[in-house]
């Protein structure tokens, strides 16, 4: 099912390519030994190299190279054994050298793809053109002074991976799914923490529209959108804007726009450079980066199981529906929790409890899965207790809440609170008899054809059993007794 904008001149499809900047997780910067820690005092994480002092030279951090290789492997891409760093020349106060060291026509990674799952169950393959390493810029602050901006170079020189997708994305939903999958991959690998709100993952979206089958339209680039939701909104807005513009006989201008998340619109950005020409050329302070077989092999060995592979395994080994498996693997920690809880237990039921009660609880408590008050072992055990009939699924709700509140094992809770399910026929019959004897008029009504009263009887008897009666048995016995 494709995303189509119905216009007056016909249907329009949207074409989107995303450029995602991921800040690489490393102790030191890409070309200097200065630290990368967040939140430090201004200009304390800066070396003379980062600040562009005269005579300073870059020396590459091997860890950043390995992170890029692993991420490339995660994107099913080609790891280029030879890549070259180039200078992108432009002036801005956050760029101390007057150029950014980046990669131009020889990136470290090229030609990959990721498969993304859509809500309707379809899978879409999004091509990845390239991943290259480059330096992050510093930060400017504008609110401290009436006539000056403040420059903090702490982030200047931190390694970034710029991941450029092909223009394969056809809807805001696909863009969101792509970003979620990408975020999931870099988090699994540990090459980027993927926090868009903190700016460690940033997204630029190239958006154009066309009538299906037409050649590509002129695109606008929406810069630096800082959440997945906003990216989706920005694309939706921008595509509509372009369609309206075109249908009014206007033309889309190739330009840089920014997304105003409050108003939900995109608008033209003031251009940084009046006459942009970045004058890329290979950085003469660096020679080509050649990857040894050892480095590539080491990276391959260190690759974790990625979300897509994990999802397939969950479907195959645990019999989970694909959608559920997708939910569980989105975050590495959830997948790990699930595996620990499902091991040796009814995995499907465990998955349901995780995605239902556990997520709801964590949400309410504002906790992550790592901080879950219910251990995976206890959750697994609780499912066992349900399956072997020790507790009913109704009682399980209570047991779960006790586990949340008290952190005890389900066995202990069942024991202490006396929550064991009653499966003794005579005990249940006794409860039913009491209820029937106490309510002769209701029994008469039922027997005269008011079947709906069965629910009332179930409720009363269950209540009388303090919820412990096995629901199936109770139902059967009640029907029999009421029938007379």
């Amino acid at each position, binding site marked *: 099912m494709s995303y189509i904008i119905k216009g007056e001149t016909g249907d329009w499809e949207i074409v989107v390519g995303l450029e995602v900047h991921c800040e690489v997780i*490393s*102790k*030191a910067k890409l070309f*200097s*030994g*200065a*630290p990368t820690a967040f939140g430090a*005092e*201004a*200009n*304390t*994480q*800066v*070396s*003379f*190299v980062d*600040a562009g002092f005269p005579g300073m030279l870059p*020396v*590459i*951090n*091997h*860890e*950043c*190279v390995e992170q890029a290789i692993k991420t490339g492997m995660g994107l099913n891409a080609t790891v280029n054994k030879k890549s*070259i760093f180039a200078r992108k*020349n432009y*002036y801005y*106060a956050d760029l101390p050298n007057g150029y950014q060291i980046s990669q131009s026509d020889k990136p470290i990674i090229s030609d990959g793809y990721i498969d993304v799952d859509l809500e309707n169950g379809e899978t879409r393959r999004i091509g990845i053109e390239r991943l290259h390493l480059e330096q992050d810029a510093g930060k*400017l*602050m*504008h609110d*401290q*002074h*009436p*006539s*000056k*901006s*403040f*420059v*903090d*170079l702490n982030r200047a020189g931190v390694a970034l991976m710029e991941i450029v997708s092909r223009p394969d994305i056809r809807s805001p939903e696909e863009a969101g799914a792509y970003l979620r999958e990408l975020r999931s991959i870099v988090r699994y690998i540990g090459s980027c923490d993927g926090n868009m709100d903190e700016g460690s993952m940033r997204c630029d979206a190239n958006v154009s529209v066309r009538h299906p089958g037409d050649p590509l339209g002129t695109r606008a680039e929406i810069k630096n959108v800082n959440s997945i939701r906003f990216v989706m909104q920005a694309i939706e807005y921008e595509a509509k804007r372009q369609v309206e513009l075109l249908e009014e006989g206007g033309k889309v201008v190739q330009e840089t726009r920014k997304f105003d998340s409050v108003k939900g619109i995109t608008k033209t950005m*003031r251009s940084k*450079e*009046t*006459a942009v*020409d970045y*004058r890329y050329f*290979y950085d*003469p302070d*660096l*020679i*080509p*980066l*050649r990857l040894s077989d050892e480095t590539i092999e080491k990276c391959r060995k260190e690759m974790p199981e990625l979300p897509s592979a994990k999802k397939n395994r969950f479907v195959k080994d645990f019999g989970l529906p694909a959608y559920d498996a997708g939910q569980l693997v989105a975050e590495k920690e959830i997948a790990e929790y699930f595996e620990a809880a499902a091991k040796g237990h009814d995995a499907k039921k465990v998955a349901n409890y995780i995605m239902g009660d556990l997520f709801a609880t964590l949400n309410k408590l504002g906790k992550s899965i790592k901080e879950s008050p219910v251990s995976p072992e206890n959750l697994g055990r609780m499912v066992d207790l349900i399956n072997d009939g020790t507790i009913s699924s109704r009682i399980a709700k209570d047991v779960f809440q006790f586990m949340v509140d008290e952190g005890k094992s389900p066995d202990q809770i069942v024991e202490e609170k006396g929550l064991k399910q009653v499966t003794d026929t005579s005990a249940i019959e006794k409860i039913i008899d009491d209820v029937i004897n106490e309510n002769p008029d209701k029994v008469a009504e039922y027997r005269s054809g008011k079947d709906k009263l069965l629910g009332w009887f179930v409720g009363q008897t269950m209540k009388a059993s303090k919820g412990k009666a096995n629901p199936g048995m109770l139902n059967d016995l009640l029907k029999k007794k009421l029938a007379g």
Partner: protein
Amino acid sequence: MPMPIDKDMVKRLGILSRLSIPEENTEEMVTEIKKIISWVDQLKDVNTDDVLPMNSVVEDMDLPERKDEITDGDIRDAVIKNAPDQMDGYFLVPKVVE
């Protein structure tokens, strides 16, 4: 087609390199750049088919790599000391309107 070398070109080069060329010197600069570009034009005579560009004479060396260790930073005073305009450990620039 490359942009012709004229006054507009000189203006553009000035913007790109943040140099202001006074109006009265623009013509001189046009001549100067034209002269150089036509002088280097003789390289056209050299057959460079199948020749790869050479970026560095040490291009065949292995690029040295550093370990991921913190060996630098925490030198704010030294980083800031030479700045013409600074406050509270920040470099100051004329306000940027974003």
